[in-house]
């Protein structure tokens, strides 16, 4: 069924009796052409685009828990394409463009809101780096502005301009950056995929892979064996666990990233802001909560929960930047498991096993990548070649020395 304002009014006047399930709960079939492992944002987007853009059918998404239960439902909802390097920027800009038409495309209001993102600058070196980055963005067709201190002050006069340990000297802004209602992305893709015949199978954990003569045949699951011609893995956070079924070790570690939300508040922050002198970034949700985060906890973890030092570190950053929020209360903390890759950039590639494809290593940039990741992965699955914006996301880039290391931290995942 098609959603619209008229429909909402009509349903309201007739007691909401007409709303249909947003997705079915089908039993798994014996075999599919495509199995996507992982019913998070990337997996659902992959299935959606496989069906819609690449005309494929007989597709199933296998989700070990509930749809959208991975990092798509536990992130800080930021979208942006303010990357520096050639390997990344075209991909994220492609993603941002997909976000811009997403709601009309999948007929679901995911509240894509381009209220702008600013990265604050505190040193001359940061300004130089921002200039390099901003120019790279524009050259790749994205938008960027360099704001002066006064321009930042006009936007947020209550930031700590006068008594800060590190002065605010300006900001790099991407006006088209913003936020999206994260759960709605999963639901919108799920609904769109389901409408196109994709089987979304919840509570179905993959427990093994059947591989014969170097070719994938299907997957063992908690709901039985399911055959497949092609299997795409999109389980960021658990990539190493799932790929271990195929005997692969990955250039990835799993780390926990905590995120935070405050109690609901009247509007304070319009866009997204990152502090350049501490670990803190923040936006305000439409409901009024400040949604913020900082650094990863820093040790390998699959626990989906973090520890106190990072919470304090983030709060210190928040208070250093915004001295007025002393009495704003932190309401809830949670943790997501990140695929931290060896250069901070993702992998969308074939594997050594025919018919088995991999999508992961998103670090904490996965949410904003959801549309492009789904599209590029669907492209790879359907055509056996990389999408033009994702050509750099290969496994062998480490062997060849073609790392895409935005932060320049080298082969240490917890520093990316």
């Amino acid at each position, binding site marked *: 069924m098609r*959603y*619209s*304002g008229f429909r909402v*009014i009509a349903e*309201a006047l007739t*007691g*909401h009796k007409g*709303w249909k*399930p*947003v997705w079915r709960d089908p039993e798994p079939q014996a075999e599919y052409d495509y199995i996507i492992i992982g019913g998070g944002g990337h997996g659902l987007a992959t299935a959606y685009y496989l069906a819609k853009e690449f005309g494929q059918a007989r597709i199933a998404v296998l989700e070990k828990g509930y749809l*959208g*239960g991975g990092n798509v439902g536990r992130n800080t909802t930021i979208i942006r394409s303010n990357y520096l390097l050639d390997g990344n920027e*075209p991909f994220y800009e492609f993603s941002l463009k997909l976000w811009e038409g997403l*709601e009309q495309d999948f007929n*679901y*209001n*995911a509240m*894509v*809101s*381009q209220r702008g993102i600013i990265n604050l600058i*505190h*040193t001359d*070196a940061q300004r*130089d780096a921002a*200039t*390099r*980055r901003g*120019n*790279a963005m*524009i*050259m790749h*067709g994205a938008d960027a502005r360099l704001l002066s201190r006064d321009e930042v002050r006009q936007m947020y006069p209550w930031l700590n301009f006068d*008594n800060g*340990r590190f002065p605010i000297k300006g900001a790099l802004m991407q006006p088209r950056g913003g936020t999206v209602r994260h*759960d*709605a992305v999963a639901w919108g893709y799920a609904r769109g995929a389901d409408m196109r015949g994709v089987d979304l199978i*919840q509570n179905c954990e993959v427990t093994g892979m059947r591989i014969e003569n170097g070719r994938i045949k299907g997957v063992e699951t908690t709901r039985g064996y399911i055959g497949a011609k092609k299997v795409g893995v999109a389980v960021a956070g658990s990539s190493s666990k799932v790929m271990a079924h195929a005997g692969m070790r990955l250039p990835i570690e799993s780390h926990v990233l905590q995120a935070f939300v405050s*109690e*609901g508040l*009247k509007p304070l922050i319009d866009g997204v802001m990152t502090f350049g002198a501490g670990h803190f970034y923040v936006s305000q949700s*439409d409901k*009024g909560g400040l949604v913020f985060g900082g650094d990863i906890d820093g040790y390998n973890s699959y626990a989906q*929960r973090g520890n106190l030092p990072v919470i*304090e570190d983030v*709060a210190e950053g928040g*208070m*250093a930047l915004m*001295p007025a929020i*002393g*009495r*704003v*209360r*932190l309401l*809830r*903390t949670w943790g997501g498991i990140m695929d931290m890759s060896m250069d901070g950039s993702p992998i969308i590639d074939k594997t050594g096993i025919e018919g088995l494809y991999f999508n992961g290593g998103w670090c904490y940039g996965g949410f904003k990548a959801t549309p492009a990741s789904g599209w590029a992965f669907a492209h790879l699955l359907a055509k056996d070649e990389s999408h033009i914006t994702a050509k750099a996301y290969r496994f062998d880039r480490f062997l060849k*020395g073609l790392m895409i*290391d935005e932060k*320049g931290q*080298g*082969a240490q995942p917890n520093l990316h």
Partner: protein
Amino acid sequence: MTQSHRIEGGQIDRTKTLRFTFDGIPYQGHPGDTLASALLANGVRLMGRSFKYHRPRGPISSGSEEPNALVELRTGGRQEPNTRATVAELYEGLTANSQNRWPSLRFDAMGVNDKLSTFFAAGFYYKTFMWPKSFWEKLYEPIIRRAAGLGSVTREEDPDGYDKGFLHCDLLIIGAGPTGLMAGLTAGRAGKRVILADEDFRMGGRLNAETYAVGDAQGADWAAATVAELSSMPNVRLMTRTTVVGAFDHGIYSAVERVSDHLLTPAKGKPRQILWRIYTGRAILAGGATERPIAFENNDRPGIMLAGALRAYANRWGVKVGERVAVFTNNDDGLRTAKDLQSRGVDVVAVIDSREGGDLLPGIRHLRGAEVIDTSGKLGLTSITVRQLNGRSETIAVDALGVSGGWNPNVNIHSHHRSRPVYDPAIAAFVPGKDGPPGLLVAGAAAGQMSTHAALKTGRDAAIAALDLTTAPELPQAEDAPVGITPLWHVAHGKGRAWIDLQNDVTVKDVKLAKQENFTSVEHLKRYTTLGMATDQGKTGNVIGLAIMAELTGRSIPETGTTIYRPPYTPVAMGTLAGRSRGREFKPFRLTPSHHWAKEQGAIFVEVGNWLRTQWVPKPGETEWRQSVDREVLATRKSVGICDVTTLGKIDIQGTDAGAFLDRVYANTFSTLAVGKCRYGLMLREDGIVFDDGTTARMGENEYVMTTTTANAVAVFRHLEFCRQVLWPEMDVQLISTTEAWAQFSVAGPNARKLLEKVVDQDISDAAFPYMGAANITVGGLRARLFRISFSGELAYEIAVPTRYGDALLREMLARGAEFDPIVYGTEALGVMRIEKGHVAGGELNGQSTALNMGLGKMVSKKKDSIGMVLSQREGLTDENGYRLVGVKPVDPQAKLTAGSHFLEKGAAPVAANDGGWLTSKVYSPHLGHDIALGYLKGGDKKIGQRMRIVNLLAGLDTEVEIISPHMFDPEGERLRG
């Protein structure tokens, strides 16, 4: 104002009166009151508005689970949004205002949402506002954002301080009700180090709100006596106003102590709150239980509250919430409210008991098998409609209704490691599940042990079990009533709205819609309807919501499952989590040895990490920074300049394998360096990218002094320790940082030697102390070190003395060398001179560049194994047309360059495909009279002499430049050997 609803009794100090205001209206209360109890005592039931429909609301609870009675407390920089009136301790002069309403609490224009509620069903916004596309940010969303949110935030800095601390104990007891007190008594008497923390300002928990006895005393009196005994024990720390908010790994708990929230302002120097990190071997969660309501139509009016809260207001605070009170319950505990109120002289007009059969309360109209099906009263309850067992409806005039749907154990903290609670049908509630935080035991009502006797017993037993005790106190006599409950989650009736999540306005209808649309997983239910996502995190509503979902789907409650609680238990102020690290104290300062001198001179400082370095030192008359910097550069190159370089990392490396060790950590060779000489070293990461650089001197056969960049000092030291301990433990190498032990100054310029000759005791002529020499020397007899190294391209030295003499050495050099007009230069002039010389620094050492990129490829020796040697040879890092460091100058000397600009060929469009690289650093060279820059240019080594453009699209700049050698000043290096 009179306290119209005050009745006898309670634990308030009636000898003192406290004045306060709510929405500008003055009221009075007593010490011991909360804001809510005092307002109720004054007959004020309406305290807030709900989030979505702006429904009028009053408190439903007497504790921290409160979803409704949220206020803005205090004013100015201290204004705090969303404070629960139910836990805000009353103090003289308290000011509170209602929130999320306009223009007033009684007449809220946004109340129109309530009339339109049918259009605002769960998730309606996902289905509309999509057209036209541009209207979302411009129209729909701004309206939504303005309407949303609860309290408002001040824009002023919070004037109060916050503190943090660490506590250690054998046993942490969370909650000081009967369970916690008994556990405390058990552990305390055994001599163990105990911390007993309670969020309330008065210990005793429910005992303060109940009338039954413990031993020979009233429960509250037993609590007071027990607290008195515990407070006499030196091994027991009693912490009131302290909420344990989080359980972290390995026995670490976070707790918030509200030191000054019961005061108008904190005492001087005292914090508002303290964040305690409590380290304990064992902990007992004795957090009690939270009552939950029952969903029925219009169950949200002011005056409708939890039955236990109604009772607590009467017993503890001497407040009757209404003149005519009814109770609606599905369990025996609700009956207590009726009995207690009646015994206090409150008119209990009816008890509506959903359970059929059973005894009737004497002297009260006790309706069995009955349900409340509706209520009325615009701004507060005026009547309820009751459907009796026989199906007849009856409207009863009441102004207060106590509702009890049963009690939920406060499992919250036990869930912080993601342990899922399990459903216990005997009490119709979730109790702690498996795999809670190791070392955390749960006792009393938090464990589903609901009677006072069970609380005391399990509290004592938990302390015994936690600490392996052999002795324990006797248990006092206490009531041991069973939990008599027949679950009733919602009253099936009619088409009206029955609230589950009061703050977020989630109703039974919304759960039904979620079911209809297949959002049936508890997580989907939560996320789709926003159930449990309000400031109370669903403490009262969650279980009802999922029980209703279970009913609708035909699954059992255990099959339906539950969401889990995340930290914190109650919301925590950001200021508390940040503690003292804010403002100028966000990070400590590191001051250089010349800081005091520079401050006297009016120097401008710049943050470099935590260091404050001198950026330049203005002279009188200099109005623009360039004047100062140009002067410093010119004076240095003309005569002599001095720069404090103490911030560079210094690492003392000793041992018989020190040289061999350096060969492995540096790309180039150091074991062959002669004693008394320095060498520039290039350090790679294992991935072949340049990590750091610096000069390392050999001070003795087995003794080297390494310098690192300021930024990487700590990381390099850590890396060297890794190499020493982990990679090559067989090597005899010892390391220690000496960064701060020595004040080190660069002395540069043609007169550098002449100046130094005036302060050092040794012969430092070119013959005695040639280029790249290093020696231990003396300055007026004081031990010192001298290195003949240059970052500026001038004849230059670095001289070091023990740090306490750094200030004096600088003054001495300036005084004794006065004839050479020495100047002190800062980081800007340093930058100018190093860029003139093409030395790499921050902009080039970006963690993405190889030795080859920097034009230093030959430094990577392949004759020996060193960190990064192998992987630096990968094809992607050895591309012939890869980035190379180049110098850049504008063709028009007047043209300005900007670091971060990108290279383009002439005529090329500014698109990524044509991107040739970027400018890494840029300065104005006063010698050359124009801007110069360094940059990484693709194939740059082959483009020297060519003309290109650099563009800065952010500023609309497009400048023709010439690519030149990075060695832009004195390329032959004649000056530094002079």
